[in-house]
């Protein structure tokens, strides 16, 4: 992916949550945004997704100039996995995927069926395809959300703390699913608290605090952090050891 953010500023109720943020990366597959709660990383991800407007600056993703009000077509090329899966609650897992493909991407149901079934199989969801979101576990819902994001064949997938509302066992299950994305060479940006996971899959890591980028670089910054903020942050977080789904 190619990402260029220049002098970005975002406020909520006149309070700055992203302040003069710039970031430029190229030819990376997995970017991980880390930081404590309230550091602005989820906000940054939503801005990159074109879900929210910003006060100043610019965002360019793979050549697309992202402006919220004009980002309808851009958003169709980006998959997003929300913190709380956000599956449409009145539709089965299968129909959640089909609705997006049929109505937004105008794909033929019969044509996409094998593709969708293959994805459901790959993510261990085939037997739950006809169930409603509330009938499956949080981990399965989050995996379904990943499949839905993948099904549109996106240029890029954005994952916003996909494990934040899950217990340790389900967290492991979801992170293993996200690992499949990395193995399939799909570009994605993930906001996560799982430092061990970021270390095992990310090509590039951005550490944020109070709406600013404090430190960035390849995964080595997690081994030998330079800033006292990142050192302090790393000393407080738990780690993920990779593993199987």
């Amino acid at each position: 992916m190619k990402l260029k953010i220049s002098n970005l500023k975002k406020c909520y109720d006149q309070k700055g949550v992203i302040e003069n943020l710039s970031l430029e990366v190229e030819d990376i597959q997995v970017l991980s945004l880390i930081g404590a709660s309230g550091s602005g990383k989820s906000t940054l991800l939503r801005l990159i997704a074109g879900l929210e407007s910003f006060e100043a600056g610019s965002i360019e993703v793979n050549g697309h100039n992202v402006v919220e009000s004009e980002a309808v077509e851009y958003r169709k090329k980006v998959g997003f996995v929300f913190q709380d899966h956000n599956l449409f609650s009145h539709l089965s897992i299968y129909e959640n995927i089909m609705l997006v493909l049929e109505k937004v991407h105008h794909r033929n149901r019969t044509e996409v069926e094998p593709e969708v079934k293959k994805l459901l199989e790959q993510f261990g969801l085939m037997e739950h395809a006809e169930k409603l979101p509330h009938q499956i576990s949080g981990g399965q819902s989050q995996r379904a959300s990943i499949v839905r994001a993948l099904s549109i064949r996106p240029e890029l997938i954005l994952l916003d703390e996909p494990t934040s509302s899950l217990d340790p066992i389900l967290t492991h299950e979801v992170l293993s699913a996200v690992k499949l994305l990395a193995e399939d060479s799909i570009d994605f940006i993930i906001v996560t608290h799982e430092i061990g996971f970021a270390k095992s899959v990310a090509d590039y890591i951005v550490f944020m605090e109070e709406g600013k980028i404090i430190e960035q670089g390849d995964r080595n910054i997690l081994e030998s952090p330079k800033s006292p903020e990142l050192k302090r942050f790393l000393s407080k977080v738990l780690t993920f050891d990779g593993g199987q789904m």
Partner: protein
Amino acid sequence: MKKKLSFAAAILIYIMFYIFIAMSALEKNIDFSAYQSYYRVILNGWFTTIAISLVALVMAIFVGLILYLMRESKFAVLYYISEIHKTIIFGTPLVVIAIIAYYYIGDAFNVDSKFWVGAITLALYIGAYIADIYKGAVEAIHINQWQTAKMFGFTRYQTYRYVVFPQVITGILPPLAGQFTMTIKSSALLAYMATDEFLNTIKTVQSVSFRYPEGFIIVTIGYLILTIPLIMLVRMLEKKLNYKV
């Protein structure tokens, strides 16, 4: 079994209480013969109540929708018309509205049919409550459902058609069935505008036969026959549609 016995005991206590009240009120022996000879008129009144309630509810569903859409409109004048209508309805007894509607508004618009003045009055009254049911149901759609639709590139129409509307329908069914019960009960107040509905026909028979308590027994049973299935339907719908987002 224990639950059923308790239910039967509760019914028995209630019936005994009702008989006690009725017997105390009856000066002579219980005698329904006057009502037997007028059974056709009474039955007509009962069917009029059903017809007027059904017509009023169907109209109220649309009145409620129009009031809701006016409230959500960008035009402030429509918003205020909707709010003023609701405030007047919520703050005035239906019987007062019924009398004003029949003697003045019906006259002003040259509507002579008691049935239609009654049905329209009920529709405008119940519609104000239904507008709030729509509002509550749309607001109950979790913000994440709107965000997800936006992220996946749904248009405003598609968001309402495929995401919001199906969830609103399931959300409004129980309160709508409840409103139907309300409509049937409220229709009794149309007796004040001399509409030939159930209560009014019973009152007419009472005035010629002087058999008042018997009339009240028939009227109570007549309304319960209509409302008990609806109350049970509401409970069943609430149980069936109670799923988590």
